[in-house]
């Protein structure tokens, strides 16, 4: 394709955008809104996923030992745990340490413990970390089988609930996104249809003088792509701004929430949105052209 021909295509597309100002505006707005919501869902799902993974990676197994083990026996249990596949760290927490932590957690209500007198009902324990989250369960089960172990617990439930939430948001988001994408597609294809209709005479003449179908299609295809890209650009700018503010707020008040840092996260999402917008635009015009090109 010659550069001059490409210039011609772009000029035609831009002039057509201007001629149908209102429809172009409607298309860009719809695409922008759809993609903004798509972007927000992406941000939400990815952040929830990230949170779940962060929590999951922090999951450790608490191994409670039977009472009355000798120091040798306890060391023996520790060694065996260390030898289990996937175990990366084993910390011994003795009764006294456990009690200290417990008191700390109770804070001002420590006096409740007075009823126990000098007795310490807490068991000796190990804290075990594994390399992969899918190993948490089998390792915990293996530990339970060991001699001298009372039981082994881990915080899998919280993680599983978080993942379930992520899944739900993802499915719900997917449905909404699908609808919005269809709406955007519909609006763009309508805009292009109007353009094609307004220029049907020109298209007819082009056909009579021997223009190929692709030569006729390109300006409309470009117009659709510009509408899609324009909408996506608006969405990307809004999303970037919003996420920036959100991150700032969260860091100030809820610093423990592990949000994904703005860059390159939003940059990546922006690429996804811009590509999606452009593709929706191209698809929209293709739909219209297929029906209206039979001059």
């Amino acid at each position: 394709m010659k550069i001059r021909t490409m210039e011609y295509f772009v000029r035609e597309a831009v002039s057509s955008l201007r001629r149908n100002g209102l429809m172009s505006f409607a298309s860009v707005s719809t695409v922008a809104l759809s993609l903004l919501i798509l972007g927000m869902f992406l941000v939400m799902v990815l952040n929830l996923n990230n949170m779940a993974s962060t929590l999951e990676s922090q999951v450790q197994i608490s191994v409670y030992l039977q009472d009355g083990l000798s120091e040798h026996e306890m060391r023996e249990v520790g060694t065996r745990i260390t030898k289990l596949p996937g175990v990366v760290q084993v910390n011994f927490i003795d009764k006294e340490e456990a009690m200290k932590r417990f008191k700390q957690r109770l804070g001002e209500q420590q006096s409740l413990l007075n009823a126990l007198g000098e007795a310490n009902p807490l068991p000796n324990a190990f804290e075990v970390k594994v390399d992969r989250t899918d190993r948490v369960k089998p390792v915990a089960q293996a530990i339970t089988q060991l001699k001298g172990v009372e039981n082994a617990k881990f915080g899998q439930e919280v993680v599983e609930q978080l993942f379930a939430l992520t899944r739900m948001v993802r499915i719900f988001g997917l449905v909404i996104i699908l609808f919005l994408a269809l709406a955007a597609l519909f609006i763009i294809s309508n805009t292009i249809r109007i353009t094609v209709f307004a220029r049907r005479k020109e298209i007819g003449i082009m056909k009579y003088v021997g223009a190929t179908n692709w030569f006729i299609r390109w300006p409309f295809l470009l117009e659709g792509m510009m509408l899609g890209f324009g909408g996506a650009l608006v969405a990307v700018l809004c999303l970037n701004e919003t996420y920036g503010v959100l991150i700032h707020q969260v860091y100030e008040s809820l610093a423990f929430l592990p949000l994904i840092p703005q860059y390159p996260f939003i940059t990546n999402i922006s690429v996804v949105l811009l590509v999606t917008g452009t593709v929706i635009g191209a698809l929209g015009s293709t739909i219209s052209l297929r029906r209206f090109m039979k001059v």
Partner: protein
Amino acid sequence: MIHLDGVSKIYDNGCVALSDITVDIPKGDFVFVVGPSGAGKSTFIKMIFREELPTKGKLIVNGRNVGELEPSEVPYLRRNLGIVFQDYRLLPNKTVYENVAFAMQVIESSRREIQKRVSHVLDLVGLRHKAKNFPGELSGGEQQRIAIARAIVNNPVVVIADEPTGNLDPETSWEIMKIFERINKDGTTIVMATHDKTVVDAMKKRVIAIEKSRIARDQVKGVYGYED
């Protein structure tokens, strides 16, 4: 140049527009296609530039079998044809120059070539001085001359005209016919459907009369032969 061999055209609604037409139009011919309204003239014309497909028979235009042409090959057939309509079909928002240049633009000619050829054909139809005007500012005859300029700007081997003088007064019609005659003298084949008795009778060219979807008459130096 144009060869029809037993060509029939039956529309989907069962209407027979042409039946078993065999005719040969050699290179450089000037042919009037005449006949009553609805006799099949338009279908005949439209088949040559593959606006319509023959239902039966063989139609060869400039060495291409029109009936078997792939849709993607149609543009290349039309690049060798110039088409002129009764209603001019100019683009109102483009200047005279742009309207003519448009036909070269869409087949991706170079800018220099476009400038050269457009000036040349505007000279030929005598409207170079109106290059910057818009079609709306021109008379019907002038608009048709622009349409002719557009039809011949790509050096077609055949010019097909469907009632080119149908909207014009006799005097203007003559001017238009003079232009067609000049184009024909340069070796371009011309096929023209017309209702213009005066023009046909005066030009003394080959006349093919189509009546009731068949060729009723094919005369070398023919006359119009109808009273309307």
